[in-house]
């Protein structure tokens, strides 16, 4: 092709990209060979139009063309065959277009002799549609994974394998568990959106678990072994001597299982708790204790 692409698309030299796209679309809708299966001329014209659009639809190529660096030839897009070229041996071809020709059936079967009830009639094959579900999980079940099930509106039960460490908002795809396919098509998938309910004491950040653990005054001052909860059950942990409120200890590998193997950690924040009821003995003891320490020094009060 050597025609001026502006002429082919019927736009002025100064047309905006938007106008060029509009012009291309207007022409291509009329000329696309697959939308004109019987029109031989359409193919030739469509080739020119799409070649012109290849050149002008791309601002960079258009600028180079305008500067005369490239010409309109050689801009043709190599193209395989059009869809219409397959119409005689095309498995997608639908005969649904004359299903209402009930009276013509006899005539057609006379014409085609034994070939009445042609192959392809009604062989619509479609994949079943996907089905969406929500599954609300306990915090601990989400961390540890395991089997869960969803009871469907029709009473049947869908088993769901929860991978350990699943997150809130994650979507599980259960292949083939959606609507059945039509005419032998494959069934759709079930998409299960996971909701993780918050936990009373644990919070999760990434693959790590955070928990606040109260300790007594004597445990804080003297140290000792205490039991702390983890998602996989309680473990014993050593509190070092002189541990303050806000001290964070790490339990390695006691966090959330990772998809690629391994675990996150659990972080234990200590918090000193005085006995709930006043203890006269403790009061007497502390009254004798004269420390020079002022924890509010940094506040300049």
């Amino acid at each position, binding site marked *: 092709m050597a025609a001026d692409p502006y002429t082919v698309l019927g736009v002025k030299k100064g047309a905006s990209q938007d106008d060029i796209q509009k012009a291309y679309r207007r022409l291509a809708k009329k000329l696309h060979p697959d939308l004109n299966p*019987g029109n031989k001329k359409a193919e030739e014209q469509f080739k020119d139009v799409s070649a012109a659009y290849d050149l002008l639809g791309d601002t960079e190529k258009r600028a180079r063309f305008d500067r005369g660096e490239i010409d309109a030839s050689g801009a043709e897009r190599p193209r395989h065959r*059009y*869809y219409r070229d397959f119409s005689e041996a095309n*498995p997608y071809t639908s*005969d649904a277009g004359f299903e209402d020709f009930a009276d013509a059936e006899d005539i057609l079967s006379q*014409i085609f002799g034994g070939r009445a009830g042609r192959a392809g009639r009604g062989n619509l094959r479609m994949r079943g549609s996907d089905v969406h579900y929500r599954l609300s999980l306990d915090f601990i079940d989400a961390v540890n994974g395991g089997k869960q099930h969803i009871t469907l509106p029709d009473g049947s039960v869908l088993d769901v394998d929860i991978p350990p460490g699943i997150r809130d908002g994650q979507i599980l795809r259960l292949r083939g568990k959606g609507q059945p396919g039509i005419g032998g098509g494959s069934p759709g998938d079930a998409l299960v959106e996971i909701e993780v309910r918050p936990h009373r004491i644990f919070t999760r950040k990434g693959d790590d678990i955070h928990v606040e653990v109260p300790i007594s005054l004597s445990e804080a001052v003297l140290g000792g072994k205490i039991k702390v909860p983890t998602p996989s059950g309680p473990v014993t942990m050593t509190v070092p001597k002189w541990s303050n409120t806000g001290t964070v200890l790490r339990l390695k590998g006691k966090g959330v299982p990772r998809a690629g193997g391994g675990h996150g950690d659990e972080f234990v924040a200590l918090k000193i708790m005085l006995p709930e009821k006043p203890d006269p003995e403790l009061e007497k003891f502390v009254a004798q204790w004269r420390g020079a320490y002022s924890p509010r020094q940094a506040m300049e009060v």
Partner: protein
Amino acid sequence: MHTHEFVLQARIDVETLDHWLRAGWLMPRENAGDGGFSQVDVARAQLIGDLQDLGINDEGIPVILDLVDQVHGLRNMLREVLTTINTEQRARP
């Protein structure tokens, strides 16, 4: 043909292919054993790409594909009818 060869010929990426398969716009032969794609699917994929270039959205594409397929079916039938009539006329004295 296999999937990787198909996406090359059709000039689409695997994600797009996945989307089109899910939407049912492409239906490779399932029992072909090698991915099941043929030249018909390549041409159909290019048609889908052209339709998207024309500004047709995801809702419109299956409508057009279905109508195009029906037109093909009707044209085939018409061609057979005309061929048959032609043959019969010639067979008559």
